[in-house]
């Protein structure tokens, strides 16, 4: 799973899709996940880093990660796999 290369990610919670002109606001956890996806880290690694840093259990992460990446796909921010 990879974020499209041309997507601009700012440090303060915004992303911009230059091919459509759409922009989005993202909360800090979402930013953290996107940053790691940009670095093409696998899901397992992302999960461990989030669970290390935040007060979050595995089932909650799995559920929320699935939902979040579905929305990223929905907004056409992910590369086709």
């Amino acid at each position, binding site marked *: 799973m990879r974020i499209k290369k041309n997507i601009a990610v700012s440090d303060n919670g915004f992303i911009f899709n230059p091919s459509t002109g759409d922009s989005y606001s993202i909360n800090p956890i979402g930013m953290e996940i996107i940053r790691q996806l940009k670095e093409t880290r696998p899901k397992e690694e992302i999960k461990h880093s989030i669970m290390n840093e935040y*007060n979050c259990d595995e089932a*909650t992460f799995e559920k929320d990660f699935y939902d979040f990446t579905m929305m990223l796909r929905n907004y056409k921010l992910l590369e086709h796999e």
Partner: protein
Amino acid sequence: MAKKLYERPIIRPLTSGLMNKFGSRSEYLPVTHIDGASVKDMLKEFGSPLFVFSERQVRENMRNAKRAFETRYPKVQFAWSYKTNYLNAICNIFHQEGSWAEVVSRFEYDKAILNGVPGDKILFNGPDKTDDDLRTAIKNNSPIHIDHLDELYRLTEQATEMKVKPRVAIRINMDTGIYPLWDRFGFNYENGQAWDALNKIMASGKLNLVGLHAHIGTYMISTNAYYVAATKLADLAINLKQKHDTTIQYIDMGGGFASQNTLKGSYLKGADMVPSVNEYAEAICTGLINAGFKSNELPTLILEPGRVLIDDAGFLLGTVIANKRLSDGRKATILDFGVNILFTSFWYDHKISPAQEFGMHTEDTILYGPLCMNIDVIRENVALPPLNAGDNLVVHHVGAYDITQSMQFISLRPAVVIVDSMSKAHLIKRKETLQDIQHNEAMPEFLRSFKLS
């Protein structure tokens, strides 16, 4: 090292022109306490969902309303509209503050009696009073507000039999310049019905005409309508004086003052749009004072406002059951309270606050109740911070009509508590039980048993 507070990852498209640093921040702050009583503690003690009333707010509303009218008019009496909220504990706060009772059924009438309201301080309104109801009210010397001619004749019969002259008023409907006109209750002013009915009462000599009553509508946002109504009732009173030399003791202007809830489809928030009680008072009192009564013959002004006195004193606390993503990408949150206990969600876009701290980001969310029914929608679209299963919410302004119109449907109805001035929560209605519901059922012998194979 303590871990950081987790919040569900969210992404929210920004609409051009509306871009700001925080996406679109919800206007709400978390509501962790009601009058100093902890939301989480109350849910733990009394279960979720839970209705909570603020004693302080009820008394404050009542005192403000009293002040608004008493500073503008010499003789004012409030009567608590039982149908708006007839939990006995709530009624008794109003009675402690000096309110009489205003009832529209025998059930409500008997409730007021059991609460200890003297019969002559119970105003009996409504289109449905049986002969037995009328006789009871006559015996107790309660003012009976006549709704239609059939009632007028039946009441005259009962009074003749009982050889007493009951105290009566008639309910009058009229054109106050607002639409729709509530002409189904009482006698019409413009077409002369009201004047005819008054003349019939005077001619019979069997009834003691003490008042004139109107209740022109509910959630009225025009104060001028009240000015018009006060003028028309005063006009009838002055004509009665001239023609029959009878002095009306009171003019009852009913209720209908808007609370601060936001009507569905309204562009403006209720709080930014509805008149204050002072403005209603100004319209009504000006209408009466300018009507031409002799100063020693000014009738007492009776008021029966319901929702404006109790709506913002009631809260519904609840819990998130689950989150879902709908097929079109919208977020949906399922709550543990449904439209069966929040009837007013059909009219209002209720303000809803999370009961715990949250971040700066929000998502557009649809809020569903727990009923397995498609109509069970609490809010069609509300911007809320991401909520997790188990998080708590506070719905504001649910004090009027939600308790009295709640429906036992699919699940049991929740407990109700009142928070006193020392921030202590007291149970005023316990949670319903299966036994409560089945208590009135009966099982015929032939349906008692069955065998499934």
